[in-house]
């Protein structure tokens, strides 16, 4: 039952992250939370090593790189 909730939350969070005007909020929702839900879904789909890699990538590397880009450019979307 948790798998269907995870699938629904992955798509809903991905769609929800496209609308905030604050780009830092959009980046944290869209790459961090979506990627971590996807990591738990990989564990439910019997791929443990992919789940480990996805958890590391989605919790630190991708939000860090996106947040660095937001810091270097501008935070609010015009």
């Amino acid at each position, binding site marked *: 039952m948790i798998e269907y909730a995870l699938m629904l939350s992955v*798509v809903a969070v*991905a769609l929800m992250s*496209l609308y905030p005007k604050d780009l830092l909020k959009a980046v944290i929702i869209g790459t961090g939370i979506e990627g971590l839900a996807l990591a738990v879904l990989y564990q439910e789909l*019997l*791929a443990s*090593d992919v789940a480990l890699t996805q958890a590391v*990538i989605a919790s630190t590397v991708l939000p860090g790189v996106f947040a660095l880009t937001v810091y270097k*450019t501008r935070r609010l*979307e015009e």
Partner: protein
Amino acid sequence: MQTAAFICGGLLFMVGLYAVVFKDNLIKKVMGLTFISDSVNLVLIAMDYRPGAVVPIILPGVNPADFASTAAYPLTIALVLTNIVIAVATVSLILGLCIKIHGKAGTLSARRIWPDGQ
């Protein structure tokens, strides 16, 4: 559950394509690219799923024939592991180009960088 995972991958691909085509900010377009990459990974992982199977990690003392008949298929796991790392490198390169574009044009809005569809 496998069919639901395929449908979820398709919906995630559509969300990413919507972001790439219709969103104006370049960072949101790059987020759409990561959604498309995640959806491809999800479809490939769901191809290996088998109901009632176990995680394909063999332990000492287990008969290999029994293990092969009960474990999930481990081929596309190896493919997806490479794909995740390559996607991170590609996204980092694209974000670096976005920083250079912002330094040259002063904005990240695609409508202002290329006015009149030029």
